[in-house]
């Protein structure tokens, strides 16, 4: 089973201290569980957005091996 690839952007990347991470793909997980497994000492900041494979998802959405899971703060483009 391929791994889950995790990406952090903008202020969240600075807070976490890295731009990306991996989790084994053979373990069923939700988005929120993926966060706490990777960042046990840092509660998910309020207003954090998550996307799986470039689609916005809820924190309860399932993440599977091979997925790209991204965490980021509210967007500020335009």
């Amino acid at each position, binding site marked *: 089973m391929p791994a889950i690839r995790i990406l952090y952007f903008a202020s969240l990347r600075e807070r976490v201290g890295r731009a990306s991470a991996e989790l084994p793909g053979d373990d069923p997980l939700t988005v929120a569980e993926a966060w706490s497994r990777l960042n046990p000492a840092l509660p998910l900041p309020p207003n954090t957005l998550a996307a799986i494979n470039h689609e916005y998802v809820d924190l309860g959405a399932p993440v599977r091996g091979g997925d790209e899971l991204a965490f980021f703060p509210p*967007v500020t*483009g335009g």
Partner: protein
Amino acid sequence: MAVRIEIREHGFEPLAELAAHQQALDARLAGRYGATASFIGTMRDHNEGDDVRGMRLEHYPGMTERELARLAEEAVERWSLLDALVIHRVGELLPNDPIVLVAVWSAHRGAAFDACRWIMEALKSRAPFWKHETLPDGSRWVAKNTTG
């Protein structure tokens, strides 16, 4: 339906882009559109009461293009647009640099006004861009977009 989405890593001239796009579009649509609405967002040298010296625009490559295409296509569908163009800068910007261009073409003006504004608001709330401002004495992430 036609939609063009571009992310630019270097400076761009919105009005030159618009003119080139419109010229290409005229081959297909001349006489059919009566309304062109456009919006250009430009970097200001001040924000929330502070001087701003520069800005870095980050994005999420891949998702950005997908999200912009999705919202532009949604607008085309909803307002029966004849064409839509969205160009957004990323990278290092200075005051007066263009950030974003949104332009739409339609038969009637109501649809053009509505769709252009809707795309800008949807872009601001959904497209994964983040602004990091350089101030005279430090720097900061812009925390939240203001409502339009």
